[in-house]
C-alpha cells in the first residue's frame, strides 16, 4: 500500500474519481469521503461545527462504498453541509454506521469548486493487500 497518502485523484476525461487508502476498510471509507469533499471545496477552510449520524445497508462492500458516498452527496445537496472528518463507527460487508463532522456552506469562506452529483459503479474497486485500497468514479 502507498504510505503517507490518504487519497489521490483519479483522472477521467469527462469525470473524476478517487483512490483512497487505509490500514483497515473503515479508514479507507473515511478517506474516500474526505477525497469526495476535497473535490467540492478546500477542506482547510471548513470547521467542525456540526455532525450527522448515518446508517446504511447494501448488498456488498462495493455497493456499500457507493451508497456511503451517495449518502454524503445527498446530505450536501439537501442540507448544504460540507463534511471534513468521518468516524466510521461500524463497518461490515453490508452495513455501515458513521458520524460525519463539518459545517454548512458559507459562501464568504468556502469556494465551491466542483458539483459532485453522484458516485458510480463504474471502475469501482475495493481491494485488500497490505491495507485497503478503494476506487470510485464520480459523475460531476
Amino acid at each position, binding site marked *: 500500500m502507498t504510505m503517507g497518502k490518504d487519497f489521490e*485523484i483519479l*483522472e*477521467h*476525461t*469527462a*469525470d*473524476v474519481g478517487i483512490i483512497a487508502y487505509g490500514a483497515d476498510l473503515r479508514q479507507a471509507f473515511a478517506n474516500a469521503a474526505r477525497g469526495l469533499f476535497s473535490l*467540492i471545496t478546500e477542506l482547510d477552510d471548513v470547521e467542525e461545527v456540526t455532525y450527522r449520524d448515518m446508517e446504511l445497508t*447494501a*448488498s456488498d462492500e*462495493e*455497493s456499500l462504498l*457507493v*451508497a456511503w458516498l*451517495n449518502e454524503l*452527496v*445527498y446530505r*450536501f*445537496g*439537501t442540507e*448544504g453541509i460540507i463534511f471534513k472528518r468521518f468516524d466510521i463507527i461500524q463497518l461490515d460487508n453490508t452495513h455501515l454506521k458513521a458520524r460525519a463532522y463539518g459545517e454548512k*456552506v458559507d459562501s464568504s469562506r468556502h*469556494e*465551491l*469548486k*466542483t*458539483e459532485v*452529483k*453522484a*458516485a*458510480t*459503479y*463504474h*471502475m*469501482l474497486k475495493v481491494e485488500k493487500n497490505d491495507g485497503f485500497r478503494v476506487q470510485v*468514479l464520480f*459523475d*460531476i
Partner: protein
Amino acid sequence: MAAPWQGVLRKIDDYRWEIPTSYKQGMTVPGLIFASEAMLAHIWEEQVFQQVANVAFLPGIVRNSLAMPDIHWGYGFPIGGVAATRVKDGVVSPGGVGFDINCGVRLVRTNLTEEEVRAKIERLVNELFLNIPSGVGSEGKIRASEKELDEVMVQGSRWAVEKGYGLAEDIIVTEESGCMKGAKPDKVSSRAKKRGIPQLGTLGSGNHFLEVGVVDELFDRKAARAMGIEEVGQVLLLIHTGSRGFGHQVCTDYVGLLGEAVKRYGISLPDRQLACAPISSPEGEDYLAAMACAANYAWTNRQFILHWARESFVKVFAKSQEELGMRQIYDVCHNIAKIEEYTIDGKKQKLCVHRKGATRAFPAGHPDIPDVYRNIGQPVLIPGDMGRFSYVALGTEAAIRETFGSTCHGAGRVQSRAAARRSLRGVDVARSLAARGITVKTGNMASLAEEASEAYKDVNEVVDITHKAGISLKVARTRPIGVVKG
C-alpha cells in the same frame, strides 16, 4: 506503420467503423462508430470502443451499439452512445440515459444584430447572470411545494407556462411538447424530490451554460428561414441544462435498484454501471416512469430559464419581447430513453432507444415533429465549446435507417477536467476569450478552465462527420459573443 486498430475495427467507409461481435465474447450485435480516421486515434487511446462493445451485451439490443463522433469515455455507457432494445424482450438501463436525465438544449431567435448586442454585451451577460441562478449547489427563485413538484413531474413545461413563465407556443416547439407521458411521481424517491425542490429554475454548473451567439454561416437558407434564422449576424440564445440534482438522484436510486434486479433476472454484464432490467418488468417500468418525471422536471427548468432570459433581454434593450422577436426555435433532450417504432428485418417493432449524449434527429414528414417543421425535418441543436461554434442541423431519413433517428450532441471532451485545470487557469481562459470577442461571466473561475476550448474536440469536425454520413444535415453555425457559466 499500420494503425493500431487494424484488425480490430472494420472500416465500412470514411465515416463508419465496425466493431465485430468477435471482438469480445458476449457481444450480441456489432458496434458501429461514426468517426473520421483522424478521430479514431483519440477514440483508440481512450479505449472507448471497449464501452461500445460492452453495451452490445445488453439483452434485446438490435442492429448495433452505436457511437456518435463526439463519443468519449463515460461510466458504463460511453457518452455519445445510442442503443435500441426490443420492448418485447429487451432491457432498459438507467446508465444508458445518464445521470442528468433530459440534459438538453433550447435555442431562441431574436431580431437583434451582432452590432446592437455587442454595444451592450457586458450589461446583457451580467443581467443574465443575476437573473438566472447558477453555480455549484445553486438554489432557485422558485420554491415549489411538494404538491407542486408532483405537478411539475407530470406536466413538464406546461406547468411553468401556466404559471406565467413563457408562452404556449414554446411548448409546441419542444421535443415531446415538453411533457413525457407515463410519469409517475410515486416512483420517485423522497430523496430525489428533496434534492429537486430547491434546484428548480437553476442552470447548475459544469458544462451547463447560456450562450449569446451570432449566426456565422448559413448552409441551408430555406430551413434556416423556417426556424426564424434569417441572416448572418443575427443573434440567437442557447440554453444548456438538465434536471439538476433531481435527475441525478433518480439515476442513483435506480442504478442501485436495477443492480439488484440484474441478479434476479440472471443478466450478465461486463460493467456494473450498465445495470438494467427487462422493459416489461416492474423494475423497468418503474424506472421509465421515474425517468419521465425527471425529463419533465428538466423541461420545466429550461422553461423558467427561458422566461428569465427574455426578461433580461427586455430590460437591457428596452424593447418588448415581441419587438425583440424572441421566439423559441426548438428544445431537444440528449440524455433520454424513448419508446419509438422502427422497421427491423421488414417488421415494425417497438424499441426503447437510449440516447446518452445523443440528439434525436427525425426527418421531414415524421409525425412526432411539430407542424412548423414537418416539411423540413426536426431541428437538431448541437452546442460546441464556449470558445468556438455551435450548430443547428436537421434530422434525416438516413438517421432513421442507421441510428434510430439519432445524431451527435456536442463537441465531446478530449481532456480530463483535472488536466485542463493544470494546464490552464480560469482567468487566462477568460482573458483569451475576451481577446476573441467573447464576454464570459461565471461564479466559478476554476471551473472555467475545465470547460476551455482546449478540453474539447473541434465541433466543426464532429458535425462534418454527421453531415457527410448523412445522419443530420447542417443548417447554420453560430459563434459565441457572450457566455454565462455556472
